[in-house]
């Protein structure tokens, strides 16, 4: 996939929903840019780039695409659509929603260690106490504090006995 899609995703673009939104925005952006270019050629004016969100701008930056390069944008749309359809997706549940830095760190880890196009979704479950529950495909990895406590309950009495002695 890396060879077929030689484009890098920004770390802030981590979820399938964000990617879909970026694709929609990118299509609109490309349409606006085409209209602007036509209007500029007709009026002999200088074409101004349409407004783009920070996420789209970071996508341009990471992919090395010029924001007024019409063919490059068309290609970028196709690449993003291919990523959306084929990229692996991981669902993470935590005791609270992670902040931007943690999301970026997690996304960076998955893209470095698992797949460069890994997409993440985050959800909260307050009853797990801490840690995380990872769902990849049909498999669930439960590394929550709750699970660790419940699966190692015997350690509590062992620790208690060792402390008492």
């Amino acid at each position, binding site marked *: 996939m890396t060879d077929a899609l030689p484009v890098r995703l920004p770390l802030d673009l981590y979820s399938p929903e964000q990617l879909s939104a970026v694709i929609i925005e990118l299509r609109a952006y490309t349409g606006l840019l085409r209209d602007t270019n036509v209007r500029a050629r007709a009026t002999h004016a200088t074409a101004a780039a349409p407004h783009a969100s920070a996420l789209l701008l970071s996508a341009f930056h990471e992919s090395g695409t010029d924001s007024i390069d019409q063919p490059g944008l068309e290609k970028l749309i196709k690449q993003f659509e291919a990523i959306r359809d084929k990229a692996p997706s991981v669902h993470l549940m935590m005791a609270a929603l992670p902040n931007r830095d943690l999301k970026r760190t997690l996304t960076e880890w998955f893209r470095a260690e698992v797949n460069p196009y890994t997409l993440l979704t985050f959800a909260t479950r307050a*009853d797990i106490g801490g840690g995380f529950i990872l769902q990849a495909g049909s498999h669930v990895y439960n590394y929550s504090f709750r699970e660790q406590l419940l699966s190692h*309950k015997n350690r509590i009495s062992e620790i208690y006995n060792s402390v008492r002695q």
Partner: protein
Amino acid sequence: MDSLQLVLVLGLIALVVINAVSLWWAMKLNHQLHERPAPKVYEVKVDAGKVLANVDMSEIEQLTKQQLTKVAGEAGARFKESLNNAVDNLSIHISDMANNSLAGEFEKYQVSLQALRDQSIQEFSKLQKELDARRTQLTEHLDKIIQQEGEKRLGSLDERMNDVVSSYLIESLGNQVDLGAQSAYIFDMLHEHKDEIKRDILS
């Protein structure tokens, strides 16, 4: 007639004469016996009152008593001596019997008694061993049951204590979540299970 016949006839005649003389002598003696006078019977009557009239009856009675006492004493002494001898003889006889006859029987009895005693001791020893073994077995079984029961109750207590502590910790953690502080743990877990996660994600 020869001389032999003559001798025989003479002998016969002499024999007849001798028989006749014998018969005559016997008849004469019988006659003399019948003619012997019969013995006379004298009837004497003594009146003790008249004969002993002049004797002191009390003295006689006293003398009689003395004689009787003396005779009785002597008889008693003799009887006592005889009885003592008889007792001694009887004791000796019994002792001899005991030594000769009963000793063997006692010896047999003692042998039988010893055998019975040995057998009883063996039986009691066997019974004692069985009782000891059974007691040991029961003691071990009881110890095992007590130990199992203790472990069971201790396990139940530990389980309940663990439930209480786990529940408390989970509730406490649920109210005080700090993902920043947990990030080290999160990435440690991810690194530790990276291969499994990667395999499941890419499959």
